[in-house]
């Protein structure tokens, strides 16, 4: 009954390919594919949709060989990054289109379209022309059209990426509601994104994809708390996790000219040389801390991201407030070492604050 992929490989170009991807997607669940540009997210979704034929591997759905089923019979709806609508049709006609094609009776079409307009928050807009809508509204029309099909598999390929952040914030909130309330237990939703916060917020099962390979699969919280290696830590944190080459001394952890106390969970590391990982949000301003120089202060939403340097050290810290800093300002910071990670020299997770060193 599940959507099951096995060893899917596909080579589009040298840098863009799928390498033996396997998955098992259950009905009634939300899956988030998290990966950077060129990691293969779109290629994977297109392969599921039937727009691309893999070089090898298989996809089965409801115990049928999915690859033998042509695109139009796959019962899939897909929402793209670009807002794709029919420019000559109004909002109602755009959403009704797939139902008219199926030849449903007008009353039924009407009911379904209004139900779906309500879900995406576009009630009252049904007579508008597409050009009269903002980008966010246009994207909601394409989402509504995909919902109305009541497809068994709903694919959303970075649907928020082309919107400005205020709209993204609003639509993300709506997506959560739609996924929780608006979908049947029979549907599989697959949502791709480059944004780890989006993945956290959607709170589904996360598949971390990199260079066409699946690196880790797990609940959003699990990926966040226990990234299995440096690559996953990099992909699943924005701003990226700070990684510092460190030495474990007898009673201190040292990196460059900084020494900090050893937290319990890092005291039993096998290797004395390791990668000390700490999130931007786990570094705090503290008058008794280590002095760093501000390289740039970035503001993201309500957060101030400080890019700091001290000698050869470069770190990023985030403050949950908007603050004014200038380039070359001096700040003092403290590392919350009880929240630190250790990765061994080849990059595998050696200890996490959530699971200790026997990971």
């Amino acid at each position, binding site marked *: 009954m599940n959507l099951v992929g096995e060893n899917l490989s596909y080579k589009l170009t040298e840098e863009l390919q799928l390498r033996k991807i396997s998955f098992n997607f259950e009905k009634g669940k939300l899956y988030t594919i998290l990966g950077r*540009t060129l990691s293969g997210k779109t290629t994977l979704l297109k392969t599921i949709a039937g727009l691309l034929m893999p070089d090898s591997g298989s996809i089965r759905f409801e115990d049928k060989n999915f690859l033998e089923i042509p695109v139009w019979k796959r019962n899939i709806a897909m929402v793209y990054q670009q807002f794709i609508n029919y420019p000559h049709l109004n909002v109602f006609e755009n959403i009704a289109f797939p139902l008219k094609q199926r030849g449903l009776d007008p009353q039924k079409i009407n009911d379904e379209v209004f139900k779906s307009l309500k879900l995406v928050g576009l009630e009252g807009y049904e007579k508008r022309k597409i050009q009269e809508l*903002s980008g966010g509204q246009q994207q909601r029309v394409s989402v509504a059209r995909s919902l109305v099909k009541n497809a068994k598999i709903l694919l959303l390929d970075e649907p928020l990426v082309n919107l*400005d*952040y*205020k709209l993204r*914030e609003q639509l993300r909130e709506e997506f959560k509601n739609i996924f929780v309330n608006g979908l049947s237990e029979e549907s599989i939703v697959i949502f791709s994104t480059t944004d*780890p*916060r989006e993945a*956290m*917020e959607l*709170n589904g099962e996360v598949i971390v994809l990199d260079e066409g390979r699946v690196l880790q699969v797990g609940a959003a*919280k699990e990926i*966040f708390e226990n990234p299995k290696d440096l690559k996953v830590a990099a992909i699943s*944190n924005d701003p990226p996790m700070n990684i510092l080459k460190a030495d474990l001394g007898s009673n201190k952890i040292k990196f460059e000219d900084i020494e900090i106390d050893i937290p319990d969970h890092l005291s039993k590391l096998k290797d004395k040389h390791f990668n000390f990982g700490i*999130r*931007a*949000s786990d570094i705090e301003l503290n008058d008794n801390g280590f002095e760093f120089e501000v*390289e*740039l*202060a*970035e*503001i*993201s*939403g*309500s957060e101030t991201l400080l*890019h700091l340097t001290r000698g050869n050290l470069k770190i990023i810290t*985030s403050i*949950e*407030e*908007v*603050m*004014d800093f200038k*380039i070359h300002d001096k700040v003092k910071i403290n590392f919350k070492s009880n929240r630190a990670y250790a990765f061994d020299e080849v990059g595998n997770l050696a200890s996490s604050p959530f699971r200790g060193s026997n990971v």
Partner: protein
Amino acid sequence: MSKINLNKISHSYNPNDPNPTYALNPFSMVWEDGKRYAILGPSGCGKTTMLNIVSGLVRPSSGKILFDEKDVTDLKTESRNIAQVFQFPVIYSTMTVYDNLAFPLRCRDFSQEIVEERVNSVAETLNLKSFLKLPARKLTADQKQLISLGRGLVREDVAAVLMDEPLTVIDPDLKFKLRRNLKEINEKYKTTLVYVTHDQNEAMTFADNIIVMSEGEVVQTGTPKELFERPKTTFVGYFIGSPAMNLFESETSSNNSVKINDTLIKTATDLSKLKNNKVKLGIRSEFIKIAESQKENVISVDVEKVEDLGNYKLLTAKMGNLTIKSKINRETEVSSEKVNLYIPPEKCCVYEDEKLI
């Protein structure tokens, strides 16, 4: 480099109508020499009209524009001595990268030494050094945009560099670097930079001063911190920051308190001179804290959901029909039913007719 003075500027596309509609409502503003400004607002707010008035592509229906003390209102773009960078790369594709960058200087008969020095310096800052000899058409889209940026920055004698969403086509990783470079260029050469964007994050990161626009009106000018902490209108409270500022319908109750439903909240605002008692209370989710016990300015709310967003938890709660959002520490355990929240009076913003009191 110049100080730019926009004096009682307005713009209407039907100025002769008895009731003209304004794309840009009358406003006055001074842009200081050597600073970074961002014009921020949703599409259709008038930000490009404002930029076009400064560049000379649009003549304002009323008002004057002065570069230092010189009135340039009737001067054409080419006589205004400004550099412009657009959303998409504009390059001479048959020329080399070097010749592209040198073009604005050669047009103005700068000496070969100055051309050499400036082109190299700009190419260095923008990471274009290794491409200087290549024909510009061979570069990728974002590298081409770097050439456009470089051409805008290569002259030190311009009054201002005007940029209209210049980083749209740039890869996110490179964006960070470029924002930093633009800030450095500004600090080094003291170029006045004016930057139009709809992206709050970009504006807040880039500029010392942000001009927030909405429906043809300048609603606030200030530093990122000012916009965040004291938004002058409820629109700015919504538009700046994520999540948006919490806003509650309320009634004034004493000289400095408001009543939300039946709960009294003390603020640091003098409310004694208001004409009517209907106001809105605004408070950022970052400033609301979980409180141990009932005391002044502590409200008891029903927890609706707590989302773990990794770096923090976002609490959504209800007080009667009002929704309150509060950012809380990820380590904090929150009851799933009732919780007490403290609203610091000094962080409260009170709005009358959507404007800050």
